[in-house]
């Protein structure tokens, strides 16, 4: 009864939202749409963003975190033409949800976000993560193995039900391969369900296919279903693959015209990728060349080559994204090489290359010594060449090189101890008009101990950094040290101590008056964190402590939050055979570690979430509540420090429904509500409230036709400023001419305080076996402000 009522309530909500229009969609000037791969704990999430006006974007950074994580992890997105992509690694995908937003760095130096409202309300996008079910391991798809390429001659499906309870009736099992129900052809042998290849005879098409096994109990109710994927290849192809070297690849060329307010620009780009395998070796190569590559910008072109042998050896060259411990190097592009050698007991990872390329500055005018103003962009120049010794310049960017190495001991199954070294330095002579080239040195160590099949995990890492903020003058001589340091001198530090430091560290980093930290005894450039995780009795409990000195910096990690310390506690409790998840988290952080601020701010965060993933035909539900309390203890009425007072509390509630259902045809719906309010009793006194509702329905009408409908509503009130808008997005995909032609179109109007209309059309035609032509058109209109359009044509040749 309750079930029926809930279903009716949900459907009523959906209908109400569809027809009354109380919905929300992301409105953004730079990103038109973001899609991500299916979300399940332990599987990576591939996030793809469709860009509009991509030429005005210089960099995109994905910021994400899972429940209970103190801070967002940043990862550079790879921009390829009008699309950007990044992957959240599988070990960071954890139930009940992942939160993310995208930092959009513009070519003009400004920064904006996706969702656009993130700058105001700091509300990220939330993706529900489904937790793995213990029932998954009860039902095993033995053949084909996941991702296996199978010769059609050798093809058969075996599902093992050895782990299911006695109330399961194997004879009622339903087996689907792709869209084909092959249940009538299966044979039951004890715990095995077998679909023999002899029954195939053209039933299953060659190519990538999914397998879905639905297992029912003796009452006829669905017990559980599992899925896998494999590739069926013809005998001819399989025999060709027996030749030792197998490869695939494609070449893609695009011509694109972007028209922004009658300003028309042509772009073109070429991308080629290649994948090959030879026995245990795999190789990948990729090159992307764009007409948007400019000498005065950081590289837009990308190229890479990689080869690896199972998990023992890997080597990447070109644009690489090495992953070292988080404090050292993670998510940063390094143009050079990155390699790993894993022997189990001893392993080593090394990376070397360029993180910034040189961009020459511009000389604006020159000054004599007496006329030169004391400004940051007035620098010493070659007086022989330019007549005067000083010049005002547009500062360029020095070429920055980076070397990182991490030897480690242990295979991380039970134990791993690693030591990291990172050195990064600007090449002082790489440009003529630049100032303050820098150098950075980081030493770190990390430890992982896993006990009882990793049910108890103790992990930690610590790193110490040194940074020199101006190495243009090189290291100091002993005479210079005597004159700069000492009592009554420029810096009150014993010169003999400085000389000792120079003797020790001068081999690694330039030692002069610009090196920091100057107060290492206060741990200002130390970063450390430790965590204990316990996974028992359906509880996943984690307790962690972080410490980040205010001067810690690694050039391999641009986005690390510093000047913070504190505890974080979280527990994810699995109930009702992993159908119900209760997640609780509490964090208490504070800043001002080295007393460099007027007051110490305490940041306390309480997070909670309840998720229900029923095993029967009913929506999944996630309810969340977060409370953020920031306070620095200063009184507003304090005549001197009152203007620095921080005292605000933000409460946020979220509600999310996800439902796959059949109403004549299969639909997948997602409905989310979010409301938050900030009570600001600090000096800025900016009380605010935000509300949003979002509904998305994906429907598959036939094997050739699918549709998407998205409707959303957003309202905010910040101080006296109100903002309300409503947006819908509707479109579909249609396959024609025996699937050779694919048409997709999306229309997205926005009404209210923000008005704009967007229309996207994509037509893809398979001209011949290996050749596809893709036409892409976008029209984007902001009434009274701008009209812009993008038309592109792409040819793709597959080998």
């Amino acid at each position, binding site marked *: 009864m309750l079930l029926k009522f809930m279903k009716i309530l949900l459907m009523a909500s959906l209908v109400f939202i569809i027809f009354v229009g109380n919905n929300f969609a992301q409105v953004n000037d730079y990103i038109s749409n973001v899609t991500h791969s299916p979300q399940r704990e332990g599987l990576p999430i591939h996030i793809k963003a469709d860009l509009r006006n991509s030429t005005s974007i210089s960099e995109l950074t994905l910021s994400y975190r899972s429940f209970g994580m103190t801070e967002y992890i940043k990862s550079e997105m790879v921009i390829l033409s009008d699309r950007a992509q990044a992957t959240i690694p599988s070990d960071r995908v954890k139930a009940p949800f992942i939160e993310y937003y995208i930092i959009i760095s513009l070519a003009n130096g400004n920064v904006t976000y996706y969702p656009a409202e993130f700058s105001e309300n700091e509300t990220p996008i939330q993706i529900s993560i489904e937790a793995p079910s213990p029932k998954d391991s009860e039902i095993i798809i033995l053949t084909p193995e996941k991702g296996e390429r199978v010769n059609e001659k050798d093809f058969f499906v075996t599902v093992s039900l*050895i782990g299911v309870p006695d109330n399961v009736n194997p004879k009622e099992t339903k087996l689907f391969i792709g869209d084909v129900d092959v249940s009538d052809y299966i044979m039951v*042998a004890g715990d095995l369900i*077998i679909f023999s*290849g002899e029954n195939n005879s053209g039933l299953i098409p060659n190519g990538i296919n999914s397998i879905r096994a639905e297992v029912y109990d003796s009452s006829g109710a669905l017990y559980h279903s599992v899925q896998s994927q494999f590739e069926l290849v013809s005998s001819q192809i399989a025999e060709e693959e027996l030749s030792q070297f197998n490869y695939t690849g494609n070449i893609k060329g695009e011509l694109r015209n972007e028209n922004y307010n009658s300003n028309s620009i042509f772009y073109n780009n070429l991308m080629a990728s290649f994948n090959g395998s030879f026995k245990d070796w795999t190789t990948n190569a990729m090159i992307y060349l764009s007409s948007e590559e400019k000498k005065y910008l950081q590289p837009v072109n990308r190229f890479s080559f990689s080869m690896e042998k199972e998990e023992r050896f890997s080597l990447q060259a070109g644009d690489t994204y090495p992953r070292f411990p988080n404090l050292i190097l993670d998510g940063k592009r390094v143009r050079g090489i990155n390699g790993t050698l894993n022997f189990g007991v001893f392993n080593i990872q090394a990376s070397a290359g360029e993180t910034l390329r040189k961009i020459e500055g511009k000389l604006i005018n020159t000054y004599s010594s007496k006329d030169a103003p004391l400004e940051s962009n007035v620098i010493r120049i070659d007086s022989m060449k330019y007549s005067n010794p000083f010049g005002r310049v547009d500062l360029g960017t020095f070429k920055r090189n980076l070397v990182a190495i991490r030897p480690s001991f242990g295979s991380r199954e039970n134990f791993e101890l690693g030591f990291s070294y990172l050195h990064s330095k600007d090449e002082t002579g790489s440009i003529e008009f630049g100032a303050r080239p820098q150098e950075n040195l980081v030493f770190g160590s990390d430890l992982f101990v896993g006990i009882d099949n990793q049910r108890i995990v103790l992990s930690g890492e610590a790193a110490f950094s040194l940074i020199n903020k101006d190495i243009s003058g090189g290291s100091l001589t002993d005479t210079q040290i005597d004159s700069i340091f000492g009592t009554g001198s420029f810096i009150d530090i014993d010169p003999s101590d400085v000389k000792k430091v120079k003797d020790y560290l001068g081999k690694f980093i330039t030692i002069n008056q610009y090196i920091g930290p100057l107060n290492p005894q206060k741990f200002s450039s130390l970063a450390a964190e430790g965590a204990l995780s316990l996974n028992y009795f359906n509880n996943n409990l984690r307790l962690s402590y972080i410490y980040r000195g205010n001067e810690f910096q690694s050039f391999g990690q641009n986005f690390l939050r510093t000047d913070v310390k504190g505890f974080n506690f979280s527990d994810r409790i699995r109930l009702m055979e992993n159908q119900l998840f209760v997640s609780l988290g509490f964090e208490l952080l504070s800043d001002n570690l080295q007393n460099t601020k007027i007051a110490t701010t305490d940041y306390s965060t309480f997070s909670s979430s309840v998720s229900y993933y029923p095993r029967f035909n009913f929506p999944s539900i996630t309810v969340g509540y977060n409370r953020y309390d920031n306070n620095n203890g200063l009184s507003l009425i304090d005549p001197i420090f009152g203007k620095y007072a921080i005292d605000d509390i933000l409460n946020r509630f979220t509600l999310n429904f996800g439902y796959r259902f059949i109403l004549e045809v299969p639909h997948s719906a997602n409905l989310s509500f979010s409301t938050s309010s900030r009570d600001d009793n600090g000096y800025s006194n900016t009380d605010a409230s935000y509300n949003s509702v979002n509904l998305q329905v994906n429907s598959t009408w036939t094997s050739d036709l699918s549709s998407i409908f998205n409707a959303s509503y957003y309202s905010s009130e910040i101080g006296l400023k109100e903002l309300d808008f409503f947006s819908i997005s509707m479109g579909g995909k249609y396959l024609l001419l025996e699937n050779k032609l694919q048409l997709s179109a999306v229309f997205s109007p926005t009404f209210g305080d923000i008005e704009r209309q967007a229309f996207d059309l994509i037509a893809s035609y398979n001209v011949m076996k290996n050749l596809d032509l893709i036409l892409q058109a976008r029209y984007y209109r902001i009434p009274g402000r701008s009209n812009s359009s993008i038309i592109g044509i792409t040819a793709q040749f597959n080998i």
Partner: protein
Amino acid sequence: MKKFLILFITFVIIIPLSISKGERPKDPIAIAKKVIKEVTFKDGAEKDSWNNLKASQTLLAESEVKTGTKSLAAILFTDGSGTITVRENSHLFIYGDKGDKKINNKNSFLEKGVIGFKVTKQKDDAFLISTPTAVASIRGSSGFVEFDEDSTFVFHLNDGSASVKLLIGDKTEQEVGEGYTVVVLSDGQIVYRAATTEDQSIFNDAMNLNNSKKLFINTPDGKVEIEYTE
């Protein structure tokens, strides 16, 4: 006396036979994933005849698999615990007890030949591969076992962890590290050494299911295809 004899025959011969018939394994514990060329098997329930093994053939406990020259069979255990690749000219017995949601006492007895193994991490008991002279206890790993006609036992561990216990000589137990090989000679002498390139080559061959060639013969009845391993 006659009555006694009848009773004796009834109790001593017929009843135990009927009991053993009742205990015959019912549920398959393994399935043939791939078969190349000449592979025969004796079913665990019907042990009196050899039949040709085909892919997707289920195997009961106590089944035997025999491969001919340039032949191969890949056997999967139904609890997903591992794959055994039986290389040419080998003879393997498969044992295991179907327990509650798992197969207990998994034991593959190699009478002769070479088998490759890829075993997932074992929670409770180890995955055993036995020969007449030694038993390998595997806890999640890959490698190969060879048992020659001269009774030389070779165990190579490519990755994971395992131990080898001798059934002859001083019956010692040797822990085996990744990338190491244990050789037990017929007199019980044990040699523990780093794997050689030859070991690695045998391992690669043992695990490679696609390392086969085809021979086509035109006959009056059409083209005959013979697949064989290299």
